[in-house]
């Protein structure tokens, strides 16, 4: 047994987190910053944090993940990290020449209380920031929130630093894709462009973290939202923010700063989630939905109906980020699966929990939700009463193996499979892929468990 010390009986814990269903803010900030074209994320703290964050993202994407660090020593921890950050900015522009450095803080620099905007001003005053180059920042103390918070804060910083209103609105729509995969970001934009809508999407990690192998390494790949685009986002006719927790801060900031109105939706996962997204796009932009998209929708409905018997009544345990949990739970309920256990390490607030409970209110059995909760607790619940399927990141495979339950990998991090960077789980096509993954897991299991007598060829 891999997790041999996990008891079935749940006891109250107030201090010890075991097998967390979240990680820390900076990794989310780093991920968001990689979605700016020509950007070098910078971790203001000691070098362990950035080493860990780069490693985690590298393992997840199997792609170069570049970032720098202020490399605090014990001295900087006492006197503050100003000298380190100034030196870092100078070195980075001299040696690596990015268009922009996106600084995020760490527990260390936050506990010290370094004032990043003041340090950036100083760097500018000292001529360390070349003309036409930028340094932005986000405060990401890891003792608050989670990696989702870090993503949200860095995305908001893009608005705070760049968005400006030109005085008249363009026909462009802003998209904030949430903490999603490069492939999902691509899909979110593809849907809008199928509808003939011009968009600015930020952040955008597609073609940054799913790039080609050409034999030429480029530290700053083609992808990413550009600074002119971020500026123009302040003149767009509106913003569609996907995933409230990861995206609404930026959307609301844009509204407050540049009077760009916003709609905040769930992540467009599954039939209804995508319907909502497409319908909002249609109404905001005043366009018709093209037949090609309606066809994609129809195909998804078709598969749901074809395979409904395999979904119906299946119990699922989920661990992941709040925006994803909500969207996936809705999708599962829509196809008559039952999300019976859900945990996220991210503190998402009472309102979110209420929304999630609302989704499962008609479930035919008790549904357990804990937030913040961890995978240890999830495992204990499963030991008490098993489920048919697990959905979550790679760490769930330890539970999956011990309890012999099929697992569909989704979320962050996925260290042991590929696909998430290339094939979306959002949109109608993504919904189809998600169902395919669920079916593969369930039916492979059915085949494995079949006796010689009841093995089925056709399913």
């Amino acid at each position, binding site marked *: 047994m891999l*997790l*041999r*010390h*996990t*008891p079935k009986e749940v006891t109250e814990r107030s*201090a*010890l*987190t*075991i*097998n967390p269903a979240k*990680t*820390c803010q*900076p990794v989310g900030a780093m991920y968001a910053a990689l979605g700016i074209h020509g950007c070098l994320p910078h971790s203001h*703290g000691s*070098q*362990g*944090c950035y*080493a*860990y964050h*780069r*490693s*985690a993202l*590298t393992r997840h994407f*199997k792609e*170069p*993940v*570049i*970032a720098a*660090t*202020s*490399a605090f*020593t*014990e*001295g900087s*921890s006492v006197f503050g990290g100003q000298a*380190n950050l100034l030196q*870092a900015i100078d*070195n980075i522009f001299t*040696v*690596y020449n990015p268009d922009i450095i996106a600084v995020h803080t760490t*527990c*260390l620099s*936050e*506990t*010290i209380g370094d004032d990043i905007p003041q340090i950036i001003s100083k760097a500018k005053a000292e001529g360390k920031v070349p003309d036409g180059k930028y340094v932005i920042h986000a405060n990401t*103390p*890891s*003792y*608050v929130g*989670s990696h989702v918070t870090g993503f949200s804060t860095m995305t908001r910083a893009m608005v705070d630093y760049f968005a400006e209103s030109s005085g008249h609105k363009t026909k462009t729509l802003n998209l904030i894709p949430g903490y999603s995969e490069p492939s999902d970001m691509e899909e979110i934009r593809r849907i809008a462009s199928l509808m003939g809508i011009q968009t600015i999407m930020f952040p955008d990690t597609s073609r940054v973290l799913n*790039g080609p*192998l050409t*034999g*030429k*390494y*480029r530290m700053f790949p083609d992808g990413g939202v550009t600074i002119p685009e971020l500026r123009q986002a302040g003149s767009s006719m509106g913003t569609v923010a996907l995933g409230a927790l990861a995206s609404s801060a930026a959307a609301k900031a844009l509204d407050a700063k540049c009077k760009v109105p916003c709609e905040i939706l769930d992540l467009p996962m599954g039939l209804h989630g995508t319907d909502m997204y497409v319908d909002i796009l249609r109404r905001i932009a005043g366009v018709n939905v093209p037949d090609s998209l309606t066809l994609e929708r129809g195909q998804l409905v078709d598969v749901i109906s074809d395979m409904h018997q395999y979904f119906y009544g299946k119990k699922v345990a989920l661990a992941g980020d709040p925006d994803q949990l909500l969207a996936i739970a809705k999708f599962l309920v829509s196809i008559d699966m039952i999300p019976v256990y859900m945990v996220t*390490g991210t503190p998402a607030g009472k309102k979110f929990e209420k929304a999630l409970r609302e989704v499962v209110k008609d479930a035919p059995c008790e549904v357990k939700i804990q937030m913040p909760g961890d995978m*240890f607790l999830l495992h204990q619940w499963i030991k008490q009463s098993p489920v048919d399927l697990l959905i979550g990141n790679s*760490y769930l495979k*330890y539970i999956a193996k011990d309890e012999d339950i099929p697992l569909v990998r989704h979320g962050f991090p996925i260290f042991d499979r590929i696909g998430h960077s290339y094939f979306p789980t959002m949109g109608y096509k993504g919904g189809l892929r998600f169902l395919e993954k669920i079916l593969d897991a369930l039916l492979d299991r059915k085949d494995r468990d079949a006796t010689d007598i009841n093995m089925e060829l056709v399913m």
Partner: protein
Amino acid sequence: MDALEDIVLEAEGLTPEKVKLEMLAKYPTKVARKRARQIVINKVGETGDVPEIQANVRTTPGLIGQRGCCYAGCKGVVLGPSRDIVNITHGPIGCGFYSWLTRRNQTDADASPDGHNFMTYCFSTDMQEKEIIFGGEKKLKQAIQEAYDLLDPKPKAIGVFATCPVGLIGDDVHSVCKEMKEKLGINVFGFSCEGYKGVSQSAGHHIANNGIFTHVVGTDDTIREGKFKINLLGEYNIGGDAFELERIFEKCGLTLISTFSGNSTISGFANCHTADLNLIMCHRSINYVADMLEKKYGLPWIKINFISASATAKSLRKIAAYFGDPELTARVEAVIAEEMPAVEKARDEIYPRTQGKRVMLFVGGSRAHHYQDLFRELGMTTLSAGYEFGHRDDYEGRNVLPSIQVDADSRNIQELEVHPDPEKYNPRKSPDEMERLTREGLPFNKYDGMMPEMPDDTMIIDDLSQYETDKLIELYKPDIFCAGIKEKYIVQKHGIPMKQLHSYDYGGPYAGFKGAVNFYKDIDRMVNSKIWSYMKAPWQKNPELMATYAWE
């Protein structure tokens, strides 16, 4: 030593000196000056003397390198692989999360009678703002209590690891641990391994060594059976390396008392002072424990290396020489004779395909050295190498130890004062015997470092930066590059195969005899793969279009 045979570069007018200058040219003056001392062109003198390299110094902010932090060295590297210690990270969630199962230290829990294995778990106090403001000791105490109450069966040891903010807010992990140790009646010990300490993981190794030595080593005097008792230090069982070594030891009739810390248990540490010889694999991460064991208990240590078949054979012979027992010597020889043919067969088959290929290694604090032996067996040349967190002695040899200046960053890492134990100190060999063995070619407490074994004109680079990585690859176009996960896909985007020498790319084992064969095969696969030729599409190779397509 002969100059680097590979003169391709010189033909292109690229001498190592020029490469070095080109690398430094881009840096701001101050940085260039510092890096100039960390980039050294090797020259081995008559007596094995080598040029001085600057190492174990601060990373330059903004330069982008490979290093991690003190916590990673302490919790991640040294303590992480011990299966029966509940390791609680005291701090915000990230540090604990990232060090959760990511180093692939394998362990065989069913080999311990109690079957304890907490390595698959991540325990953290997940500090919140409240604790940052008001202190986290209460939460830590409670967390230790909960771990004890809840885990089934109950743990017998709990380790606590401090991360960056803990030191700043002044939580005293040691007093909390002491209190809980008394309360729970199990071993509870803490490590002040805040990430900002020292200049790399190396500080964390040292802190881990100190802590384990203080709190665990020597607490169990049980004399275990066995004629030739050894400890293996600095072997972390990545990809099952330790299992292969255990297999070989058993075959040779050697009794392994403890390993620091691959496939290890706390009882092994507690009992390790009862062994008769310490074998040091990764000198950097563990030499402190070896030194302390010698001072307190009289156990001598020798440097060995089980990476490569020839190094393994040589190391086994050293062990046999130490014990000086004819039966053991005969058995060791028999094992070598039995194991080598399969290794040689594999090597002979692969050698023609790997011979002459060129390699670069930038990793860790010993692997960049050890793996050169394996590459040498494949006829491959090391063009350039360096450590991520090595010290001068790892490069130039321990004879430079007296001349290493302790700087502000290292001064704060405690040096334990260790004295002979009044009861348990027992020198295993008399000074005369030690001297004789040294004379006969078994030096004690000696490590010559990486540089004396490397050809002249190779570039030795400490704490390699991203910029230098890219430059090295552009200029030298090596056939394979070895480093860690962060470098993996960057190097491969250059079109050069990249071998991870921390995680082995999820393969291995690479140690010992069977490990060598695995490595030969993996390297053959990588440097001779056709996949590196796929990068250009047909239309990129032949872009011209005819006016009209010539149908067949």
